[in-house]
């Protein structure tokens, strides 16, 4: 601000006419004495801010980054971008609950971008380059469980250069991705392709190996680090009379059998208790096996934890759902299950911070005629095999801190076994988190500092690719998420969201072929154009066009805009006209 006085002594001085140098005020003033940048109080800066989609992704995917490539039809590089953060884009492109789309700024304008559909399209193509193992490090890491958390951790640790061994109880890899998710949602070819890509980095695998049984904890804990990602497989019981009957089966166990191709029996009328994805998966699988399923859920459709699209598809397929209904007893006759006694509920007002509690209505008891019950009311961690001394378990899960560390030194945990939300994408995020955390424990890097440097928003996710490649964007990264108010939506036109085709309901119930068909290139490209590219310069040139002083310069070789601070006087027009919120104004001296 003190520079104001230097705006040519001429501009401020009250000359007499004899003192005024002849012509000085109008001609012959060297232009460096007229640098209007000295007038500036606010400085516009090209920055990169976080897009809300990327922030919302628990796996820390660079959503905006991959969409930027997809907009240009550069699908290989789009996949490279996705693989930089997660080895399972084909999986997430199919089964994720896509919090990115809920956060999408486009949702406030017309409809959110179909990010999941685009992720799937991109992931089904080929990357331009495969991830490579990092320079070898001497430390060895054991990973228990080959689900999304374990696989992701193995993938990133190999990229960081560690020797990694995955111990898997089953004979096959994939954990719940393979055991829990039916193939009509996630074809095994997709899963196998992505697991192969992980293994190709040189991950060692020990299948059929139960920790605490085939390999003792004492042995494992001598490794340099252990990541526990064994999932939660102990089914919670229904807690009603008769629930121990042979015809009352665990939903996860039943799905596991179906998914592994073991022979399963399911009656002609099966009642499935629960409202989560497991319940819906069981129902739809049972339907495909020729049964007539009915889902029994104690609250309403709005409270069902299953993904909305899953519920909708189930209903399309003709599956009956009894809402506001709780089982109260299993009815048996002549040693056979003959029915499920239920009662209707009403919802009480939700308590602050909680969900609406169902309350049984007296006198509404009724019997549902069924011959099999599948219980899908949740799973917990089998505590029996956990190492002694691991403390802080809560609600049947291993306590971890914000960097995946357990109470035992050298032991990390993540995914369903730990206190993480039980979603695939959270497990992927937990695997990545453990990888970086384990790495930092060896390098001595400060996790707080790393977290600040690598964060993708305020929700805890981070970018490991930025760490691995020291890949900071060419512009300053500002710790701020772009909201609708940061965008100039005058430049946006409403565009219809691409509808993603599905098999017809009557066709898809015949077998386990994939329900969602994905989109073609034309549709993908059109959908990618709908992305606002929040928080990143998309090169539209508005700043260049609107700058009243010609102080926004364009470098054609780098295809980049720059601000000429010698002449920019800080009017802020560039920032107002920037459609993506990639220009911020900060007070001079506060930068």
């Amino acid at each position, binding site marked *: 601000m003190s520079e104001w006085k230097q705006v040519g002594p001429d501009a401020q001085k*009250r*000359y*007499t*006419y*004899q*003192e005024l140098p002849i012509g000085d*005020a*109008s001609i012959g003033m060297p232009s460096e004495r007229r640098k209007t940048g000295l007038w500036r109080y606010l400085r516009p800066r090209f920055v990169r801010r976080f897009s809300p989609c990327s922030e919302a992704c628990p796996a820390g995917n660079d959503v905006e980054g991959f969409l930027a490539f997809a907009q240009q039809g550069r699908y290989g590089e789009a996949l490279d971008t996705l693989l930089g953060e997660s080895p399972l884009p084909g999986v997430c492109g199919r089964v994720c609950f896509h919090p990115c789309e809920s956060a999408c700024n486009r949702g406030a304008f017309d409809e959110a971008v179909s990010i999941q559909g685009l992720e799937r399209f991109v992931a089904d193509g080929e990357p331009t380059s495969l991830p490579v193992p990092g320079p070898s490090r001497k430390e060895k890491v054991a990973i228990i469980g080959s689900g999304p958390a374990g696989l992701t951790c193995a993938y990133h640790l190999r990229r960081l250069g560690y020797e990694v061994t995955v111990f898997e109880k089953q004979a096959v890899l994939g954990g719940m991705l393979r055991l829990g998710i039916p193939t009509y949602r996630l074809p095994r070819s997709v899963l196998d392709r992505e697991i192969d890509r992980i293994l190709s980095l040189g991950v060692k695998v020990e299948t059929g190996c139960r920790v605490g049984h085939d390999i003792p904890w004492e042995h494992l804990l001598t490794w340099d680090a252990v990541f526990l990602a064994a999932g939660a497989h102990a089914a919670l019981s229904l807690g009603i009379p008769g629930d121990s009957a042979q015809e009352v089966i665990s939903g996860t166990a039943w799905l596991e059998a179906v998914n592994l191709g073991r022979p399963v029996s399911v009656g002609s009328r099966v009642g499935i208790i629960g409202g989560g994805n497991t319940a819906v998966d069981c129902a739809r699988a049972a339907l495909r096996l020729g049964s007539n399923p009915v889902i029994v859920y104690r609250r309403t459709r709005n409270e069902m934890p299953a993904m909305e699209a899953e519920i909708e598809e189930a209903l399309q397929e003709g599956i009956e759902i009894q809402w506001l209904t709780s089982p109260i007893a299993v009815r048996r006759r002549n040693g056979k299950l003959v029915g499920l006694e239920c009662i209707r509920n009403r919802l009480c007002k939700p308590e602050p911070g909680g969900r609406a509690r169902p309350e049984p209505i007296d006198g509404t008891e009724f019997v549902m005629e069924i011959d099999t019950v599948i219980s899908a009311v949740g799973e917990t961690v089998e505590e029996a095999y956990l190492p002694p001394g691991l403390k802080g378990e809560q609600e049947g899960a291993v306590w971890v801190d914000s960097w995946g560390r357990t109470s035992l030194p050298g032991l990390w945990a993540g995914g369903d076994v730990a206190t993480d939300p039980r979603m695939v994408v959270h497990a992927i995020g937990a695997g990545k988190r453990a990888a970086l955390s384990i790495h930092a424990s060896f390098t001595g890097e400060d996790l707080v500092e790393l977290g600040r440097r690598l964060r993708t928003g305020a929700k805890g996710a981070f970018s490991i690719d930025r760490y691995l490649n020291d890949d900071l964007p060419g512009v300053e990264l500002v710790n701020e998420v772009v909201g609708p108010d940061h965008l100039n939506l005058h430049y946006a036109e409403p565009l219809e969201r691409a509808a993603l085709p599905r098999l017809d309901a009557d066709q898809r119930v015949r077998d386990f072929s994939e329900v969602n068909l994905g989109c073609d290139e034309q549709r993908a490209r059109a959908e990618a154009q709908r992305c606002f590219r929040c928080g990143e310069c998309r090169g539209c040139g508005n700043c260049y066009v609107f700058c009243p002083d010609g102080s926004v310069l364009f470098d054609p070789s780098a295809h980049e805009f720059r601000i000429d601070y010698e002449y920019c006087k800080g009017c802020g027009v560039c920032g107002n006209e920037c459609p993506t919120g990639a220009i911020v104004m900060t007070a001079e001296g506060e930068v």
Partner: protein
Amino acid sequence: MATRKMLTGNYAAAYGAKLARVEVFPAFPITPQTPVMEKIVEFIENGELDAEFIPMESEHSVMAAAVAAEAMGARTFTATSSQGLLYMHENLFVASGIRLPVVMAIVNRVVGPPNTVLNDLSDSLDQRDTSWIQIYVENAQEVLDMIPQAYRIGEDERVLLPVAICFEGIIISHYMEPVEILDQDKVDHFLPPYRPKQVVLDPDRPMSLGQIVMDDTYITEMKYQQQEAMDRSKAVIREVDEAFGDAFGRWYGGLFAAEWIDGAEVVLLTLGSLASTVRAVVKQLRDEAGLPIGFVKLRAFRPFPAQELRDCLSHVKAAVVLEKGVSIGAGGPVFLDLSHCLNRRDRMPLLIDYIVGLGGRDVTFEEVRNIALTVFEERHADSITNPVRWHQVRGL
């Protein structure tokens, strides 16, 4: 019902145009005129004014569009400032040459360099030879009142000339003050719809306007007609002022307003917003010191009221012009015009010119008072060696 509202001079111009029910509004933005354009566009957008806004790519095109629209018989309005006005210069002749009563608000601003958004009258005084009627006003109320009047003057069949209403940028255009917004019904009565009887472009009767002629045809005659129209406009300006006063209760004096002239030995003459300050100084010197000083607020610069001012000033000993403009190499434009009309063998008053307020420099009450007292001392001198005085030059 007339209402009073806090308005800037620019908004007063926009309200004036709305009350005059202008039909076409071509414009290009320039500080300090821009809010006139913004407000009129707002009126059009929200349906308060049924008019066509034509956003042009330059002022030159603005006047071309205004000429075309007016030639179609549409009541046309525009506004500009400074370099924008100078850029129109060529087409100003077209409007007056085809005798089209376009009305324009000129929001006065310095013509650079050096550049500033502040005002003097150098932009509009410079347009004196374009055969436009030019009326200078004192405050936002007069801006609003003069726009319907301008149409009534220009569209009068005795006149048929374009009219510019000139008001100073910033100190009128951006000062907000109470303004009475005229009653629309009364304005409609005062200013009937435009029904031109002269040449009107009509697609069914194609014709060309303003084409080439030779020396022995009629250019001289046409120009003389313009001169006559300009002469006749003096009476029309006075009549319209009377009619306006009868309808709305405010009279501005027509070509100029003279106060305390009887028995005055010195008269201070000025134009634009400076009139407020000069009037207050004259009043104070009369009331407190009993000095025989009079005051003239010049309103019409074109037509220049030569004969009328000669009659008015014939008895005074000295007349002083205070003006915010200068023709470098000669003197202030008003002073120069006044000089030629006082060319009598007998009893010619001393004529002194004060160039003040250039580039928006404040002209204070005290400065004007000093000027008045200085000239009052000189009033009996036989001759003046320095009639053109650059009053505010530091170090002079």
